[in-house]
């Protein structure tokens, strides 16, 4: 049975803390190592894994994730490989969602992708460039296969817009902390708190904050008002900077532990 993100949020809530959500692209730096890295994140305290589906034109991503995704594509990470990686990490105990730009899913076949993800034990999909207006087919397919549709809200979203977004969202709402692309930032924008407050008024779903979070202190700060803390580029950076595979696993584990302590402060 697939474990869903709702379970992770329920556990975190019962422990009076926020959930920790960590991102790594599937197949980065190669398929085999990416599975080990993700498993290390899970054993080091990451509650939900965002498995990135590498795409050639990641226009919401900064240079760090662009570089990682290029490596994953060069290593032969196709959509089938991504689904296989999801299966491997779920089998090892992860609760996993896929983070993908829309075109690879549409090309794979919306129904086929939802079915494939369900079979792999994946819990949901975050598609940063899929708007509620374009979600028709995806709503049908994701419902049919019990896959959560995780949409984003942004600081520029009006209240009416937030209502429209949460009405087609399930699992949790992804609140983008800032106007910008992915990448570590030294401070998390104060706009994030306001956005969470506005989103809270529109939904009882859990709300997780991402974009720019990289340290335990930032995780603690966000955990004070959000239900989840999302960290991506900081994990990728650790892998890019590592001298070898062991060092990469070690560095990713250490960051996960720091962040996991942060959401428990």
């Amino acid at each position, binding site marked *: 049975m697939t474990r869903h993100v709702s379970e992770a949020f329920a556990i975190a809530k019962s422990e009076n803390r926020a959930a920790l959500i960590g991102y790594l692209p599937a197949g980065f730096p190669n398929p085999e190592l990416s599975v080990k890295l993700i498993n290390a994140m899970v054993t080091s305290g990451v509650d939900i894994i965002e498995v990135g589906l590498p795409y050639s*034109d990641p226009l*919401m991503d900064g240079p760090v994730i662009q570089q990682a995704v290029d490596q994953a*594509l060069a290593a032969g990470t196709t959509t089938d490989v991504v689904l296989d990686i999801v299966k491997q990490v779920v089998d090892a105990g992860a609760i996993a969602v896929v983070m993908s730009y*829309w*075109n690879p899913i549409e090309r794979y076949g919306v129904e086929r992708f939802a079915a494939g993800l369900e079979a792999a034990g994946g819990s949901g999909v975050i598609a940063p*460039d899929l*708007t509620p207006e374009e979600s028709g087919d995806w709503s049908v397919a994701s419902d049919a296969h019990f896959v959560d549709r995780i949409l*984003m809200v942004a600081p520029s979203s009006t209240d009416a817009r937030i209502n429209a977004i949460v009405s087609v969202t399930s699992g949790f709402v992804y609140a983008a902390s800032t106007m910008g*692309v992915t990448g570590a930032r030294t401070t998390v924008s104060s706009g994030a708190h306001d956005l969470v407050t506005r989103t809270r008024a529109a939904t009882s779903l859990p709300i997780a904050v991402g974009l720019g979070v990289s340290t335990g202190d930032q995780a603690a700060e966000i955990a004070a008002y959000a239900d989840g803390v999302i960290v991506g580029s900081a994990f990728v950076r650790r892998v890019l900077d590592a001298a070898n595979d062991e060092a990469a696993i070690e560095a990713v584990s250490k960051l996960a532990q720091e962040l996991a302590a942060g959401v428990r402060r």
Partner: protein
Amino acid sequence: MTNGHYGPYGGRFVPEALTAALDELDAAFRSAKEDSAFMQELRALERDYTGRPNPLTYAKRFSEHCGGARVYLKREDLNHTGSHKINNVLGQALLTQRMGKKRMIAETGAGQHGVATATAAALFGLECTVYMGLEDTRRQALNVARMKLLGAEVIPVTAGSQTLKDAINEAMRDWVASVDTTHYVLGTVTGPAPFPEMVRYFHSVIGIEAREQILGIEGRLPDAVVACVGGGSNAMGLFSGFMDDEQVILRGYEAGGDGVETGRHSARFSGGTPGVLHGARTYVMQDQWGQTAPSHSISAGMDYPGVGPEHAWLHDTGRASYEPVTDAEAMEAFAILSKTEGIIPAIETAHGLAGAMRIGKELGPDSVVIVNLSGRGDKDVATAARWFGIDLGSTVTNELSPEMREGR
């Protein structure tokens, strides 16, 4: 068209952070269109700054290479800055002011759109940043210099294929972070709504003028109107004037590069499939996994793996048709127009000229064809010289290759 859709194409596939800006732009565009003061200002700029209306020139000697069809050139090359791109940019620059924004960003391939944006920024006193693939900064070096002289910042993009597609990615990344103060002047009829509709609107002056001019000269509608299709803006501008004249053939010519069969091309309709790229659903060159496939063309402005969504719909409905033109065919047409009419076209444009030669032969003598002369070729002199084997080192010109001397 409803909500920015053309059949299944178009729409908006963007990060939520851009939704508010696209809504704001959509509202500004719709209110401006209905605002006579805005439209008067735009028409005055077109007349006094761009130099519109530009002529529809009968190309008598070029027509001899087109199966005897009477071929007319819509002279967008005579616009200030040397291409059709200025039509769209002036409209969007006025909208930038209307929205109270102080900075414009743009992507550019051939550099013509970048130059036009830098020009409008200078004219209106706005800040300007232009993203351009590193590969394109090399093949269009003249336009890089022009943009800098006009006061724009030019940022070479080293990601991916280092061409137009990557410049758009980078411009979008800038825009997500700067959208409060910055307008993204998208340079063609692609991207999320309302860009395809809005860019077409600002270029519709091409078709309106051409229709009136041909009726004045020939006393009848043309049999065909043709244009090169990179993103598709110059084609959409011309086509829009004849869309409702069902007897008029609309034909677009895409970059066939080394030949569609070689895989090295940018022919979305011959070698692509429906997908989502840069915010819209349209025909995209992609692999079986939906990864964007590399495109190729001798011409930077045609070297793009997507195409405007309205073209995708015109293609599927059959109202317009699209054919590939290879690098070699385009360069042949480039040479012929230069030698027969004394007009050096942009290499993008040369794809449309090769198309005119093809369709003229199809339609035969007594047919009338309008081709959009979308831009002039100054920017392409170095590329053309290399193609034709002209030694730029020995500037005095009796060193012309046999091909060039004979206009082959």
